[in-house]
Each structure stands twice: as C-alpha cells, then as structure tokens.
C-alpha cells in the first residue's frame, strides 16, 4: 500500500473516531429520551476548552483526560436535570427547540467568557512525530486518537452490555413504562446515559483540539452536525450504528478529498450531505439497523 493511501486511511479513521465518539453519545441520548440533542456538539467545545485550561496549569495528560470526562459528564447531567427533565412528556418539537436553545446559550456564554478569537491548542510536541510501520508511517496524534477512541468505546460497550446499569439503560430505552414497572428509577438511568454520552463528547473535544490545532467557542457546531449524520447513516438510537456511521463518514470524507483531484477538495461537505440524502432515500432506517418486527 502506498504511503499516500495509507496516510489517508489513518487520517479518515482518526476523523471517524472523533465523529464516532460524538455520535455514540448523541445516539444514546436519542435512544433513551427520543430527543435529537442539538446541544450535544457543544460538549465537544466544553471538553476542548477544559483541556486548554488544564494544559495551561501544567496538569499531566492522563489526569486531564479523567478531568475532561468528569466535566463532560457533569455538564451533560446538568443539562438533563435542568432543561430536559422538565420537558419530559412534552411534544417532541418542544424538546427539540429546547436543545437548540441550550446550544445557543452554551455557545454565547462561551463567546462572552472566552471571546470568539480562535486559540492555539497544542498537543505535546512529541505527539507530532511520525511512527514508522513497515514501509509506511502515520502521525502519533492520529494513532493516539484512534487508540484512545477504541479504548473508550470498548469501556462503553462493557458498561452497556455487561453490567446491571447498562441493562437498565437498554431496558429504559427499549420501553420506558415497562422499565418503571420493573422498579428501575428511570430518571437516574436517563441521567447516567446523559453523563456517559456527554463524557464521550468532551473526550472527543480533547482529541479534536489535538487534531486541528485551533479551537473557538463555536467549534461544537460541526461535530454536532456530523454526529447527527453519522447516526442517521448508522441508524438513530443504535450504539453500534452510530459507531460504524461515524467511521464510515470520517473515511468517506477524507477519501473523497484525498483521492479525487484537488480542485474538488472544497466540496467536502457537499459530498457528505449528498451521501446523507442518498442513504436516506435508499435506507431511511439506517444502514446497520436490523429491524425487529413487532409480533402480536
């Protein structure tokens, strides 16, 4: 494999990792409260700025990651408890508007407190070196993003599919009323889903800053939108679907730019949204959703 193609694939996997991290939380939240959470991308921004602040204080990186996960979880739980919980049972459009409002509040608070000026965000210099793998090489930043994402996703899958709490979350997402009748305190389960999903988005913020080098208070918009697309591609509400959708989107985006003549590079988003429309036309429920038929 040529170095060029290999580099593009690694690049696509790194971008896909970021999309997947954001999309999984987006999908978990949709799955459990049936709410398209447009504020979800802004947690990426919160994660990125939390990282920037901690780097300023010279905190070691493993601790920064822990702290960013914690801040993301707390932010998500706050949003759920203060905004979404009171909306429970309201019409879907009400919740939808509320998530937009939360997004606007977070973005503008960010602009007020941090100014709209982009800041340089630097991973430690050793992250910039390249790792030689046989005849080809890849950037350590990209490999770190991919490795860390795989670890976080593995941890998530263990929680969701191997613990009592995870089973309660899946039960709540599957049938809220039945979950309540089993004695599951659904508000706590929903809070947990928000905490986990938001922590992943914040972690994506840390990595996002590392990959792109600059951050600003409005940066959450792009990952939020891409996560939404990744979910639609994979099937909204399914964790596996969101994950695969994220990677597919990242790879498709990078390969489109990398493998076509350079004059098409500016049409990256045109390509992404065309892909979305085509998938919606051909398979509206998502590529990776097996439909469980309801039986009488």
């Amino acid at each position, binding site marked *: 494999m040529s170095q060029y193609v290999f580099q593009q694939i690694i690049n696509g996997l790194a971008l896909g990792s970021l999309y997947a991290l954001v999309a999984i939380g987006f999908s978990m939240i949709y799955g459990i409260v049936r709410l398209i959470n447009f504020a979800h991308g802004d947690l990426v921004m919160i994660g990125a700025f939390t990282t920037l602040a901690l780097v300023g204080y010279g905190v070691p990186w493993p601790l920064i990651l822990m702290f960013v996960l914690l801040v993301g979880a707390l932010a998500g739980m706050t949003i759920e408890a203060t905004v979404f919980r009171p909306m429970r049972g309201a019409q879907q459009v009400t919740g939808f508007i509320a998530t937009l409002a939360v997004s606007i509040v977070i973005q503008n608070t960010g602009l007020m407190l941090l100014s709209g000026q982009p800041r340089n965000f630097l991973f430690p210099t050793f992250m910039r070196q390249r790792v030689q793998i046989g005849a080809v090489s890849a950037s350590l930043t990209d490999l770190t993003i991919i490795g860390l994402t795989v670890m976080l996703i593995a941890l998530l899958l263990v929680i969701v599919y191997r613990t009592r709490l995870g089973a309660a979350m899946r039960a709540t997402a599957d049938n809220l009323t039945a*979950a309540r*009748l089993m004695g599951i305190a659904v508000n706590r389960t929903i809070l947990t889903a928000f905490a986990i999903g938001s922590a992943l988005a914040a972690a994506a913020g840390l990595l996002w800053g590392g990959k792109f080098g600059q951050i600003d208070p409005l940066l959450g918009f792009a990952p939020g939108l891409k996560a939404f697309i990744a979910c639609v591609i994979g099937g909204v509400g399914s964790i596996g679907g969101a994950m695969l959708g994220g990677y597919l989107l990242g790879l498709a985006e990078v390969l489109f730019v990398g493998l076509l003549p350079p004059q098409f590079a500016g049409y990256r988003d045109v390509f992404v949204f065309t892909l979305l429309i085509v998938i919606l036309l051909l398979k509206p429920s998502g590529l990776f959703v097996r439909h*469980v038929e309801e039986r009488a």
Partner: protein
Amino acid sequence: MLEVRDLHVFRGATHVLKGISLDVREGEMAALIGANGAGKSTTLQTLSGLLRPRSGTAVFQGASGPVDLTRKPPERIVGEGLVQSPEGRQIFQSLSVAENLAMGAYLRTDRDEVRQTLERVHDLFPILKERAKAAGGTLSGGEQMMLAIGRALLAQPRLLLLDEPSLGLAPQMIERIFDVIATLKQQGTTILLVEQNAAMALDIADRAYVLENGVITLSGTGPELAGNDRVRRAYLGMAQ
C-alpha cells in the same frame, strides 16, 4: 392486603375513574372485569404509581408495612412487592429473554433466592429456558406473555397485577396462561386480574368487581357474578 377507597383519576381532562373502591385479601384471586375503556388499565396504572390520582387512597400491605400507593414512585411500589404485568405484555424487545427476566429481579440483591425464583419460572415456562438467548421481540405472542408473567414473578410479588393476559392470544394459549395463573394462586400468590374475557376470569376468581365507565357497579364472589343476569348478558354473551 390492598384497600382502595374512593379513587378518582383523570387522564388529561377526562375523568376516568370516578371514585372506585375495592379490596384484595391476602392469598385470594380478585378479578376486575369490564368493557374496553371502562378504566381497568387506568386502575392498575394508578396502583403501580404510573398515574397520580386526583383524590382517594390505595393502601397496600407492603414488605415494610402499610404504604399509600398514591404517594409513592413506581420503583418504591415494586420494592414493596406490588408488581404488574402490563397490558400488551410490554416486554423489552431488544433485550434477550434472560435479560428480560433479570430486569424483573432488578431491585433484588439476594442472588441465591433470585436463582431459585428463576428455576421456578423455568419450571412453569420451560420455553423461556430454551430461548434464553433469543431477543424478546422474536418470541411469539404466547411466549411473550409467558415472558411477561415470568418477568413479574422474578420481582417476587406479594401482590401480582395482571393486565389482560388473554389479549390477542389463541384460545389454546389462553387456556395455558390461565392454568398457570391458577397454579400461582394455589402456590399462595395474591393476584388482581384485569380481564375483558369475563368468563375465564370469573371461573377462577374468589372475588370480582365489574367496572363500567369508571364506576364499580357490581361486586361479589366469582360464582355470584357469573350467575348474575346482567353480567351474563353484558359480559358472558348469554341470552336471557
């Protein structure tokens, strides 16, 4: 074991239950029969804490003493031993059969006893053991009903509420489910059964109530109601 007094429940602006009172004694099987829309499911949802009544009381002799169900959240009510198998089965479609059953035991911490209950449920419904790994949504209607009852039993109910267990099932399957309900009663489980299938319900009930438009219009023992002319005409499909 359960004492409901003058319960009024609204759904939105609709006055669904207009002051119902009923009793279920320990060890007995009570039945609540009535037509579609009479308020039967609303009654059970209120008892389980899913709906809040406008007024009235519902006192249940729970594991930790008497509790007023109208003031407790669903998870506390389940913890006290009042467990419901809801209308339309409501099993977790995407969870496996084993996980569905485990959710029934969600609040229990006594692992060994949970295992014993699971064995008892497997004895009652061997199919649930055979299909332990299958997703709940892939079961047939009858199997889903067994799963719904099994799941409720795993919560170790002191009082089991069954909402329309015969709904949408083939006659043979209804017979089977009612056999199981009779067995449960013999084994000492107190049951409040809600049914449109009045004939089957009155056949096995010690005490029965007829609910019409949110009001209890008749009550008595199962045989008494089965012999009542109005019940025979309206619910048992018999001519005079």
